[in-house]
């Protein structure tokens, strides 16, 4: 019981099939507060499916998801977000016709409301300090007045995280935060993201293909193979596991 109370996110027997493909095969998983988990696995191994089930986008055929002590199985993304799970996407999900600052103001309006929403303009109805602080934290302050759809990919990724982070989540789940970003920019991007998450004391899960990034930033690593967690533990241990080397890293 005490073990269950200590874990922020836990799943039991999570299963989901798409026709003949097993996307999640009875996943038992526990994440403790303060961990920084990297998830690796080949395409189709079920990494994103796992995230989609945990955040309510997909409903599992069987199994249970618990977050922060509450059973959230089958709840909507909206409900799970409100409990404190932030999410960023492989393809950044931002409001492409709004400015960067307006994107964050809209996001913040979900939790940091000052009331009188219909009549006050957006920046007065929302706690603007919270927004500016988050922009600063993710180094987007210089882009505040640019249209989100015009940002280069790296900054759009940052904005995607910022929109989730401004909600003050307890857990941040990031689906390939460095995909679509050039190799030399990846480390800089991760450095900004991780510093922001540390500062806000947010536990995090991120899917990543770059083993260098995993080694440098993760405190724990889980390797997904065919809808199962094949190895889970300290990054250096998982990365030297022969099954992981053969199936995930590929020499």
């Amino acid at each position: 019981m005490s073990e269950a109370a200590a874990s922020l996110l836990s799943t039991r027997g999570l299963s989901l099939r798409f026709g003949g493909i097993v996307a999640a095969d009875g996943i038992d998983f526990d994440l403790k507060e303060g961990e920084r988990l990297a998830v690796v696995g080949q395409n189709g191994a079920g990494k994103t499916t796992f995230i989609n089930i945990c955040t309510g986008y997909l409903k599992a055929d069987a199994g249970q998801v618990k977050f922060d002590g509450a059973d959230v199985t089958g709840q909507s993304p909206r409900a799970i977000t409100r409990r404190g799970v932030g999410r960023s996407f492989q393809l950044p999900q931002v409001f492409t016709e709004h400015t960067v600052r307006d994107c964050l103001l809209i996001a913040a309006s979900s939790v940091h409301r000052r009331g009188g929403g219909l009549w006050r303009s957006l920046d007065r109805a929302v706690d603007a300090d919270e927004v500016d602080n988050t922009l600063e934290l993710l180094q987007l302050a210089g882009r505040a007045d640019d249209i989100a759809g015009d940002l280069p990919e790296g900054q759009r990724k940052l904005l995607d995280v910022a929109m989730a982070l401004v909600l003050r989540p307890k857990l941040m789940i990031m689906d390939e935060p460095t995909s679509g970003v050039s190799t030399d920019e990846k480390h800089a991007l991760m450095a900004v993201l991780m510093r922001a998450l540390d500062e806000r004391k947010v536990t995090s899960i991120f899917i990543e293909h770059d083993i260098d990034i995993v080694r440098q930033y993760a405190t724990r690593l889980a390797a997904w193979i065919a809808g199962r967690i094949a190895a889970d533990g300290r990054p250096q241990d998982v990365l030297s596991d022969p099954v992981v080397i053969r199936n995930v890293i590929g020499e």
Partner: protein
Amino acid sequence: MRTATLVSLVAVLVLAVLGVSLSMPWLKTPVLMAISHGLAVTGIIVLIRAGQVSFGHAMYACVSGYAVAFLGRAFHLDTLWLVVLGTMVSIAAAALIGVFMVRYRGIFFGMLNLAFSMVLFSVLGKFGGLTGGTDGLRFDRPAFAGFVMEREDFETALLGLGLVLAVGGGVLVMRYFGGVNGQCLAALKTNETRLEYLGISAKRVFWGGYVLSATLCGLGGTLFALTQGLVTPDMGYWVRSGELVFIAILGGSGHALGAFIGAFVFEFVKLYAASLLTGAWQLALGIVLIVMVFVAPKGLYGLLVRRCKPPEPKARAVRKNVVKEVVA
């Protein structure tokens, strides 16, 4: 456009409309028609903000119009009461129908609205005993704020009321656009997934916009009914709904002012084309719209803004064509 410029422009337009219609009384009716259309079109631009187009929104003008006729005939209420109560009936209808509507997007949303409006159109046409059938319902000219007036004075009073409602409706819509709910509505157009992942219900946001749009169409409908002293099922015919969308594109969907500019141009092109090209006024309107889409995809208001403030560093070129803007 800066607030000061906008306020003075609106003031000039209001005074001009008032001055012209008082000196040329025969213009009062077309001007009132234009104002009531303009009000309904501000409702349409609320939906366009969400990236949605309805081909059935004239039903809300029709609902409030019939409410005015029924209430006027049964209780001989004052004009102001008729406007308030008629609009409230539209609000109630939209609040209910909206619960189903907000599940749909794009072409399904547009067509489902059209379907609802055609059901209403048929019901009004078939149940002649109650609704007067296709001939419609006539009602006596009501008192205005307690005063019983002749046609001439009544129209002048309605014109004053219409202008107040137009300015009020325009301000309401622009405040809504700038506020949290309006910004969320605009965000719904580009990314509903993110909205849900922010803990915001896209359906609830859209429902609010839907009811607001019907409120404005309802207001327009009461004014239309009061101007004519007659309501017919034709008020809710799908072609009428199409005209509202047409006006929104013509005037420009970015600003409430565009709705009214579009409505006035529409009304007067129709008026003059009808007398010059009898039976072919649609041709004139069609050509006007084709030219607009090619020359000024942001509508007449867009042209106006471009005139008012030449190149501003942050001004952005129109990236999408108008069809995408409206339907996407």
